[in-house]
């Protein structure tokens, strides 16, 4: 009631202020003065807005103390609203003369800018009895009327009594002065007549009627025709389910008495009760708190709201019954669809498919936050609402997709055929919701995330594939390149091999040439060495000897002619020797040029040459290998052999000369033996006598570090044996070391 009045007042204020605005614009207008209220009301809005002068006389029918001077007045023709701003607040019953101008007002035309003149007082004019539906049509705006109906509620509202009058399905609000307590107590449930001025509330912009409030100016205007029945709390208790059931004496005007356990309270709005028969919404403006489980009695007017039973305008009180915690009933959705369990505390399971959170501004009934869970059962969708002063963490934390069990007051919504269109649950507390099962993995969010992941994976996979194929392409081209490179390499290799072959062949030729040159070098060197040594050992010494002899000859030529002759003879012999030596050296030079020099063969050849003319026989016997013999040794042995043969040819007169050459790794033995006449070595002509043959043999042998034995006796032939050690296995005898020389 309070709420509705507030609403009304604000609406009225809006209307009034609008009047004011308009009137200022129209003030200059002049026309025929209207002299009764009905004429003013009869003005079409357009004309009324032109500010037609009004001068009326009438009785004030309604002037609430908080209206700041504004009032309703009525003359014989009818009532009209006066937008009085003079602060002179007339009282109902005052007779006033009002002069002002017309104004279209918010709904019905009004008088504005009035000049008031109180003429006196008078009884209020007769109220016109009208039906409540006529009143509620808005047609009787500003008129003093009388309506009748059942008082459903009579509550104090400031200095006034707010009355809710119900009749013919209408509910009219009326404000009256506070009557006597007894009267007031007897009002609820009584059949009354109310007289007052109908004040329409309107949507001023549209000039649309909204509702009518009745302002009762005096307590006498409340007439009780039929008193209320006895205290309804004394009536027998009716089951909650029973109030909408048929009763023979059932009347909408009669209150019923019910009792039940509180399941939920919306303070100042309603409480929900439960008994064995079911649940009931009990609308009440009583705001005192009851707790769920409290047992209460209530009386109220049974009504049907949206095709469902409700107890209206109820009052309730606690009983002495012990408190019993309400147990929600487990129900099937099908039962609800059959219309059962309306306003009862039930438990339902559903899957949470959405959640809405509404701020305080959006909630019409409650401060704070309304959390709305949208739940799905097998074949329907319902919501569960929870009002709380602040955001409920638990409710907001329930994952979407969870299977939850909710317990709350079931509110069905029925069609006119009684078919249940939908239902919702009011959650008394947040404990009334329980998560049965967390959402399966496949919640929409998860689905999105999974899709995102799958997409990402696919993206990665695709990029990877692309990358791999690119890499493959690259690898392929690399392999191709490599193969090509390999082919090239192979070609290069083949070429190289060919070149190597060519080069090898070339080198072979070169090496052969080099080898030949080396051989040549060696041959040249060897020959040079041999010749140098030979000349040094023979010719050079002999020539030195000759020179020395000739020096002597030169010195002694005059003083000692005999001695000089002797030396001259020696010199001559030496020269002859030199000739032989030279010849042999040159011969040796030639023989050396042959590649395969063989000492045995050389001895035989030169022996045959030497004995050629003498008829002497030469025999050469060789044993052992001559490989290790140095060239110098060979040379000297050859010379020794030649010398010995020469001696034999010259002096022995032998038939045969036997030459034995014995070679072994350590020494070489050369023996020249003849079968000639022999000689006595001691008396034999020597070098002093100009015979140098044996001397040469001795000297050569000595130079080779060897020994010589000469055995001869007259008649037995001569034997010359030469033994030469082979010092150095590498044949180094030809070139003595520097130490040996120096």
């Amino acid at each position, binding site marked *: 009631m309070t709420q509705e009045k507030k609403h009304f007042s604000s609406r009225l204020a809006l209307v009034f202020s609008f009047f004011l605005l308009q009137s200022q614009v129209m003030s200059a207008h002049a026309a025929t003065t209207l002299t009764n209220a009905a004429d003013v009301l009869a003005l079409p809005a357009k004309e009324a807005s032109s500010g037609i002068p009004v001068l009326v006389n009438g009785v004030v029918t309604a002037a609430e103390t908080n209206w700041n001077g504004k009032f309703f007045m009525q003359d014989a023709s009818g009532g009209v609203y006066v937008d009085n701003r003079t602060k002179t607040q007339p009282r109902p019953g005052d007779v006033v003369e009002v002069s002002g101008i017309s104004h279209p007002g918010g709904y019905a035309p009004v008088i504005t800018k009035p000049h008031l003149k109180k003429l006196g007082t008078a009884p209020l004019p007769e109220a016109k009895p009208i039906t409540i539906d006529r009143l509620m049509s808005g047609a009787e705006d500003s008129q003093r009327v009388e309506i009748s109906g059942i008082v459903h509620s009579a509550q104090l509202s400031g200095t006034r009594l707010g009355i809710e009058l119900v009749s013919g399905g209408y509910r009219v609000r009326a404000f009256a002065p506070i009557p006597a307590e007894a009267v007031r107590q007897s009002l609820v449930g009584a059949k009354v007549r109310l007289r007052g001025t109908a004040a329409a509330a309107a949507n001023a912009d549209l000039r649309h009627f909204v509702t009518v409030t009745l302002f009762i100016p005096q307590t006498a205007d409340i007439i009780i025709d039929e008193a209320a029945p006895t205290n309804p709390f004394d009536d027998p208790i009716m089951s909650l389910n029973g109030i909408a059931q048929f009763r023979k004496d059932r009347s909408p005007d009669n209150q019923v008495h019910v009792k039940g356990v509180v399941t939920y309270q919306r303070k100042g709005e309603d409480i929900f009760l439960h008994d064995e028969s079911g649940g009931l919404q009990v609308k009440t403006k009583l705001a005192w708190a009851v707790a769920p489980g409290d047992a209460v009695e209530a009386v109220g007017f049974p009504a049907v709201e949206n095709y469902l039973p409700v107890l209206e305008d109820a009052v309730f009180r606690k009983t002495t019954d012990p408190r019993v915690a309400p147990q929600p009933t487990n129900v099937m959705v099908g039962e609800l669809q059959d219309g059962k369990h309306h306003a009862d505390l039930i438990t339902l399971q559903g899957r949470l498919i959405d959640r809405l959170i509404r701020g305080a501004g959006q909630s019409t009934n409650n401060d704070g936050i309304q959390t709305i869970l949208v739940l799905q059962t097998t074949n329907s969708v319902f919501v569960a609402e929870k009002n709380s002063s602040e955001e409920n963490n638990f409710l907001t934390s329930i994952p979407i997709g969870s299977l939850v069990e909710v317990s709350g007051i079931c509110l069905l919504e029925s069609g006119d055929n009684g078919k249940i269109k939908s239902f919702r649950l009011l959650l008394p507390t947040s404990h009334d919701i329980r998560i049965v099962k967390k959402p399966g993995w496949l919640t929409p969010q998860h689905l999105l995330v999974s899709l995102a992941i799958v997409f990402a994976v696919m993206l990665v996979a695709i990029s990877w594939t692309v990358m791999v194929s690119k890499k493959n392409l690259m690898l392929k081209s690399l392999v191709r390149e490599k193969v090509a490179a390999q082919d090239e390499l192979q070609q290069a290799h083949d070429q190289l091999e060919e070149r190597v072959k060519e080069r090898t062949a070339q080198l072979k030729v070169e090496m052969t040439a080099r080898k030949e040159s080396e051989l040549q070098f060696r041959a040249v060197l060897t020959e040079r060495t041999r010749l140098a040594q030979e000349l040094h*050992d023979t010719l050079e*010494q002999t020539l030195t000897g000759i*020179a020395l002899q000739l020096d002597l000859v030169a010195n002694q030529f005059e003083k000692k002619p005999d001695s000089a002759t002797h030396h001259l003879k020696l010199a001559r012999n030496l020269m002859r020797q030199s000739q032989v030596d030279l010849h042999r050296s040159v011969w040796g030079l030639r023989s050396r040029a042959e590649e395969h020099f063989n000492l045995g063969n050389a001895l035989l050849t030169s022996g045959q040459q030497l004995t050629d003319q003498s008829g002497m026989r030469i025999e050469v016997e060789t044993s052992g290998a001559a490989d290790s013999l140095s060239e110098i040794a060979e040379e000297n042995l050859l010379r020794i052999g030649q010398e010995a043969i020469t001696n034999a040819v010259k002096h022995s007169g032998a038939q045969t000369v036997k030459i034995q050459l014995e070679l072994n790794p350590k020494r070489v033995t050369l023996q020249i033996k003849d079968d000639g006449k022999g000689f006595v070595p001691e008396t034999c002509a020597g070098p002093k006598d100009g015979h140098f043959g044996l001397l040469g043999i001795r000297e050569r042998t000595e130079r080779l570090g060897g020994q010589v034995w000469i055995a001869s006796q007259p008649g037995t032939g001569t034997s010359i044996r030469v033994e030469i050690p082979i010092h150095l296995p590498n044949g180094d005898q030809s*070139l003595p070391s520097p130490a040996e020389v120096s």
Partner: protein
Amino acid sequence: MKKDFNIRILVADDHYVVRMGVIAIINNEPDMEVVAEATNGVQAIELFHRHKPDLVLLDSRMPLKGGVQAAKEIRRQSDSARILMLTAFDGDEDIHKALDAGAQGYVLKSSTGEQLVPALRAVAAGENWIPKEVAARLAKRKEFEPLTPRELEVLHELAKGLANKQIADVMNISQHTAKGYLKTILTKLHVADRTEAVTVAIQRGLIHI
């Protein structure tokens, strides 16, 4: 027949004809006499100790021990010993070695006629006998950078007619190193090839055949 104030001479030469000629020449001089004759270096040293001659005439090249080596040993044992080298070798190295060994005179066999007796007399008198052709030879030596012992070794192997590889094998060095030595030797001897190198080395007396 003994002569007073004789120059007592030891003659060492392995060639009889030379020895015979030299002895005849010496004995022909009134103030000289041959006190002993040797046919090799070892014998020469032995006879020097036995006869203490005033002068030793040494052939530079003899069997068993050469004249240079014998001169060195004789000089080591008797620093007053007078030694005259009589040799067929006119290489600067031969001359250098002989003088280095302590010989005071050097006579080439090719110039015995005019030089032998004056040389004997001069050396016996405590003078040096370096004829001008010998001095010229010696001077020439300065033109050449001396060979290291290792290079001489290579030169010896080379003179045997060995190739680089054989030289390397004999000397236990790498073929590359042997080649290097050869190159140095050619440079030092102022020659173009190995044959020439051996020839020059023999002529100069760096090596002997």
